[in-house]
Structures are given as structure tokens and as C-alpha cells.
């Protein structure tokens, strides 16, 4: 079963060197234990561009699709047997990156 861990943050600024180091340790563990699928940290929401080509003519807009106080700062995609395993990993991930984590299963 795959889960998306969305890292939620509400302040500008990327991860500190200490946070990066803790994330590396956590990532190593995910790989060693077979949970790792993919992960990445994102640049700030101000760097986003939204493209909408539903109407045939692609509309390009500067900025994130939703202006909100909280934003996606990064993510993990992990493999876990069930939600209990995923929640335990998310607790460790949240501690490592020092941010909130939303756990959501893939359909």
C-alpha cells in the first residue's frame, strides 16, 4: 500500500542544515527498511506557476493555485503494510523535518 506524506508548513524558509541532516537519516532508514518510493523538498510557493489548458489555450498564472497560510513544503511517497505502519513512519518523518505531515493513501 502506498501513502503520500505531504509536509505542511506555514512559515517562509527552507529546511535548516540540522533539519536536512535529520531528514537524511530518516530517508536512509526508509530505504534500508523497504519503505522508500520517492521523496523531495519543494522550493517556496512563490516560485510556483499554474498552467490551465482545459480550455485549449493554455493559461499561465504566476504563483500557487491557492493562496493560503499553510502550504506544501515537500513530500514522501512510501510503501507500508497498513496505516499503523504509515502513521508511525509519519511521526518520525514529522520529527525529522520539524513540520506537520499529512498521511493520505493512494487510491
Amino acid at each position, binding site marked *: *500500500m502506498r501513502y503520500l506524506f505531504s509536509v505542511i508548513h506555514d512559515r517562509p524558509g527552507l529546511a535548516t542544515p540540522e533539519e536536512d541532516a535529520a531528514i537524511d537519516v530518516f530517508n536512509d532508514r526508509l530505504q534500508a527498511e523497504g519503505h522508500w518510493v520517492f521523496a523531495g523538498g519543494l522550493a517556496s510557493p512563490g516560485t510556483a506557476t499554474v498552467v490551465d489548458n482545459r480550455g485549449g489555450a493554455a493559461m499561465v498564472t504566476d504563483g500557487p493555485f491557492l493562496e493560503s497560510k499553510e502550504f506544501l513544503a515537500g513530500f514522501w511517497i512510501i510503501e507500508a*503494510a*497498513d*496505516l*499503523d505502519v504509515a*502513521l*508511525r513512519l509519519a511521526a518520525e518523518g514529522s520529527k525529522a523535518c520539524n513540520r506537520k505531515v499529512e498521511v493520505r*493513501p493512494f487510491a
Partner: protein
Amino acid sequence: MNGIDVREAITQAHRAEWARVVAALTRRFGDLDIAEEAAAEAFATAVERWPADGVPPNPGAWLTTTAGRKAIDRIRRENKRDDKHREARMVYDDDPPEPVGAIDDDRLRLIFTCCHPALAMEARVALTLRMVAGLTMPEIARAFLVAESAMGQRITRAKAKIKAARIPYRMPSAEDLPARVSGVLAVLYLVFNEGYLATGPGTDPVRRELTAEAIRLTRLIRVLLPGDGEVAGLLALMLLTEARRPARVSAGGELVALDEQDRGAWDTALIAEGHRLVRERLAAAAAGAAPGRFQILAAINAVHTSARDMRDTDWSQVLALYDQLVRLDPSPVVALNRAIAVAELDGPEVALAAVDRLESRLAGYHAYHATRADLLRRLGRGREARAAYDTAIGLAGNTAEIAALTRRRDQLP
């Protein structure tokens, strides 16, 4: 066997076997929906057949077998439509047949799944009452003053999340277990409290069916987890509280405070059972096991139920237990209850000072104002007491409590 006996046998079987049947089917078919529906159909079949065929010698086995057949029928019907996945699961169900002793573990699995922390509290309560206690949807909807359709949706949503997010159907790992057990106990305590002091004006002030159900489920957990101190503590707390229920509402429909209750009306058998459990936990504490919140609350209630009257109560013991509880749970509600013991030991003035310090955090809580009102009344500060009673009455939801507060206010000189 006459009709009344058969009905009684069905009621008995429902009480004793519902959770077992649902739990066994959930394990076998990996699906709460199928388990719930098939269990309900099996009981409906019993209602139809037992009056004519007689009650089977082993009602539980009959119900499990019947429910299993109903589940397979349903899966076949659905497979004819399209779901190949379900067919695979049914055909290749290679779980070995359950040894009898493991069936109890199934019920525990079911309880842990229904009380999973990833579900909202109200969903946990509803699911537990439906899947474990076997209450019907209308019964649960009535219990929480929610429209039946809304309650149905709440349960459906919870079951969908269990499936989609794969909330597991198994015992929590050893490291998760203490937190998960306390999550289950929180659900049961909430059900009990809603029964013991209903929060809404639209129901009876005390609701025997909810307190009874909470006690029954806690007894079940106690059988399944006999070594857990907090389970014993919660059961003792419920029994010692339930024991006072006969004296709790007056003939005139008013909530009767502890100091005015007819202690002769208390249920001595429940008290004896509760005291036995508290003694068991005291012995464990003496051997080094740190008591949790429910064990301390049970001990406080054991002190109250040991006293012949309010004056005879060992208030220094009560206060010592509250001090212990505050260290564990520094919430303002615990501090408020502690102040009531302070009033008995050091007088209402000292207690009032302690209560007033809680204002910023408890200003919206009726019991804060009711406690203040009583203390002000005892201090002869009638005008302030009246204002505090008014605020408490405005915030309270329980009809019997409102009646009692109103009388106290109206009796102020």
C-alpha cells in the same frame, strides 16, 4: 419453548454473540461492511426461524455459520456484477480455521479498529456502538441526537476510510498498545458519561441504556486485557458511579448532589465489585505499578462510596488522590474538582480562591459556575451566588441539573 423464551434467547444471543460474529466475519472477509450486513441478516434469520425450529444448542455457532453463508451469498451476488477482486479473496481465503481461543482476539481487533486514532472521535463512538455493541443505527442516532441519515453517513464514511487508508484489523504493536488502549477507554468513558449526565435537553437526564452498554463493553475489554490497570480502573470507576444512579435523580426530576443523596439507595453489589477492583489496583500500585488517571478516579470514588455520609468522607484522602491526579492530568476540570475537596477540608473561602483562578479557562463550562455558586452561597454572598447560578443555568444542557440549579438559586435568601 414458548414465544417469550425464544425472544429472550434471541436477545441473549444478540448481547453475547453480536461482536463475536461481526469480528469473525471481518477477519474472514476483510470487510466491515460485509461483516455487519451479514451479521444483521443472520440475526434476522434467527428471529424468523428459531420460533419454529427451536433455539439451536449452540446459538453462537449457528449465527456465525449462518452469517458466513449470508456473506458468501452477498459476495457471489456482487461478483456476478463485476467485482473479480472479491471473488479472488473468497476463493483463495487460505486463513486456517480459527481455533476457539483466538476468537476473543478477533473481538479485540474489532474494537481497536473501530477506536482507531485516525478516525474522528464521534465516528469512533458510532462505529463501536454499531459494530461491537450491536446497537442499531436508529438507536445510535437517538443516543446522540443526530438524524438517522447523518449517523448512517458518519458510519459509512468511517468504514470507507478504514478500507481506503487500510486501517489494520489486528492487535496494535507493543509500542502502540498503551496509547491505543487509552484511546479505546476514552471512547467507552465518553459513552458512559453521556449516559450518566446526558448533555442535551432532548433526552432523559440519565440514560441507563448508555451507561449499561459502556459497562458491558468495558467488562468485555477487561476479560480480553485482564492485566491492564487502566481497564480495571475504568471499570471500577463506572461501577462505583453507576452504583449511585438510583439516588441521582429525585422524584421531582432534579439531579441530587452527592451530599444530599440517599446513600441507602446505592447499589451495594456494584459498590462491592468496584471496591474489589480498586483494591486489586492498590495492591499493584504498592508493588510499584504507577496508577493512571482512571485508577485514581476510581480510588476517589471508592472513598466516596465507603462513607456513610458527606461528613464521614475521608476528605484528606480525596484531596491526596486529586493531588496525584493533577500531576498526571493538569487540566482545569481536574483542578475544579480538586477545589471541591479543598472546600470540605479548608473551607469555602480557600476553595473559592482556587476556583476563581480557573476563570480564564473554564468561563464557558457550566460546572465552573455551579461550583462557584455553591461556594458563594456557603459564604453568604447571596447576590454573587445568584449571578453565578444564572450563568450556570444558561450554560447547562441537562434538564435535571438545570432543575437542581434553579431550585438552589430560588432558595437563596
